[in-house]
């Protein structure tokens, strides 16, 4: 490794960062509504990819339907998590709930292996081919990567509209800020919480459906091992309560990881992207605990 490459990690970082951002938004939504760190989020990602695999390769559905099945898996997983784990544990210490979600993740991983087998599942991109050459630089960006970036932008616009223009979005924000007062004005807290979990499951599944084809394969526990930590770091960097912060954080973490991974050879330091994530997380937590765009720690 002689030259410090810039263009290649830039493309990889932006597209991975967009997927990280999607999961991070899910984490932020959950944190805003339930004050919980959601450790199942990684498996929402896996289930999205897994549902698509089941639809595409096992049931032989047309690809759009397979994707819809993947999204459905994520949505249902989010709703069930709320109903079966979060609601019974409401009003318990937050770390208890965290452990509950972690236990759920450790339940889902073997179940995925039992259903699908301990192997790599193939994932094919929405649009195949080499992709297109990025202007100026001498690197290719696949169509899939472009789609991920566009999806993040779309999700951002949708959420901005949802929280800014709809009554339901306003109800979610009100619930996160003043649960008791929200209840007094007639907002059903349980339904709002259920909605946020469903939304988080859906966002995770979107990330899974889109990201798995970039690496062309995935296995059980894929989301937990590959994206969960990055997404948490992104959410914390962004301030944990800020949706735009999660966007920025996601892109930042994606870029840092890509630069570390491509420019530091695994001979010198294996797993450079994990180390870079830890350094980044500690730097943010120790120097600016409220994150870049957060209002509270």
């Amino acid at each position, binding site marked *: 490794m002689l030259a410090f490459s810039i263009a290649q990690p830039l493309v990889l970082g932006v597209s991975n960062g967009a997927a990280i951002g999607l999961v991070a938004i899910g984490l932020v939504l959950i944190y805003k509504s339930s004050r919980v760190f959601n450790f199942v989020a990684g498996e929402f990602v896996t289930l999205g990819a897994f549902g698509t695999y089941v639809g595409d390769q096992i049931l032989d559905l047309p690809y759009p339907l397979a994707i819809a099945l993947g999204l459905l898996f994520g949505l249902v997983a989010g709703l069930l998590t709320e109903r079966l784990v979060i609601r019974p544990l409401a009003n*318990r210490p937050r770390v208890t709930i965290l*452990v*509950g979600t972690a236990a759920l993740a450790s339940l889902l991983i073997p179940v995925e292996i039992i259903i699908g087998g301990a192997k790599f599942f193939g994932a094919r991109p929405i649009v195949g081919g080499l992709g297109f050459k990025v202007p100026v630089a001498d690197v290719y960006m696949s169509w899939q990567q472009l789609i991920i970036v566009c999806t993040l932008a779309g999700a951002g616009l949708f959420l901005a509209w949802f929280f800014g223009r709809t009554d339901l979005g306003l109800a979610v924000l009100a619930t996160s800020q003043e649960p008791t007062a929200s209840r007094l004005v007639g907002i059903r807290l349980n339904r709002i919480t259920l909605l946020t979990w469903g939304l988080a499951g859906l966002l995770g599944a979107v990330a899974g459906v889109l990201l798995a084809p970039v690496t062309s394969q995935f296995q059980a526990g894929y989301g937990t091992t590959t994206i969960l930590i990055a997404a948490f770091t992104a959410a914390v960097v962004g301030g944990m309560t800020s949706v735009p912060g999660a966007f920025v954080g996601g892109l930042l973490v994606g870029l840092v990881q890509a630069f570390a991974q491509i420019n530091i050879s695994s001979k010198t330091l294996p797993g450079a992207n994990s180390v870079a994530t830890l350094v980044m*997380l500690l730097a943010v937590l120790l120097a600016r605990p409220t994150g870049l765009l957060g209002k509270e720690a």
Partner: protein
Amino acid sequence: VAIDLEPAVAGDVLPEARPHGGPNAVGWLGRAVFVAAVGAICLYYIFHFEPSHSDVLASGVIVGIGALSLNVLVGYSGQISLGHQAFIGIGAFTSAYVISQSQQSFYAGLAAAAVVGIAQAVVLGLVALRVRGLYFALVTLVWGFVGENSIFRLESFTGGGAGQDAPRPGGFTTDRAYLGLCVIVLGVILLIDWRLVATKAGRAMQALRESPQVAANYGVNVRAYTLLAFAVAGFYAGVAGALFGSRRLNVVSEDFTFAQIALPYLIVAIVGGLRRRGGIVVFALLFVLGGDWLPELAKSLGVTYIEQRAGLFIQALTGVLAVLTLIFQPDGLGTVTAPIGRWLKGGPFRLGGSGASGAEGIDVRP
């Protein structure tokens, strides 16, 4: 002069108070028979079945030590670790490195694993002094993955894909003898754990768990006792790692992952019952034995589907158990083992915990 033994207020007698002052001879005999019966069942299990069962039991004892390490953090001091694969793995690789690269004895490896285990845990503890609550949980999670993806892949330290050899010490090379060694180490750890909780340190850590601010106001040295909790947890984990490595004879990085170490050990600590060391050890053994029994049970029932996936079914089952424990029975298996323990010490047999419930205490206030 007759001393009035009547309580000042009717019904003011503590529920534990026994007018006769303890069990009679028959009571003690019954307790002795119980202990002898449990011991006999264990010995029968070890000596009657093929030697591989000792290996499984040894593995259970090691899981128990690892879960006790988590219990110190989560149960006693109100901290958390989601990166225990780094704790255990660093112990295993340090011990293997000292034994096979530095040509030292197993015991030197064990000591080195304990020291390095303490060191890395204390560094994490220093972070815990600044970063609290859920955020710290996140730091430990990332630390675990740094271990998994980076430290355990450093070829000079871990021997790369081939792994690092970790031979057993002389006299303990057979599975049965090695189980003996593991049990001895577990005994020492339990003794330390008991003294830790029963003394000033235990009360200080309990105060910390309830509220660091209040503890500080009462003169508890928050800094020192937080670091002590991490040091003890790191010590247990380092020792567990060294035993883990030599049980396998060869330490490879694939063994130390989030899904194989950090999650199951945490679940064992919770289902066993936080602050219930007896429950934790018993559940660790059941957890590992279950993985061993289930394939045989499935085989005898002719269910090959389950037989081939027994480990996965056990893992999924413990996940369910953990969620149910958190929701319905915060004391975990301690609900059963704690009354037995009290009974063995001469108390009456009464079901239920002896005070604050287990999992309730895991809050870490920001």
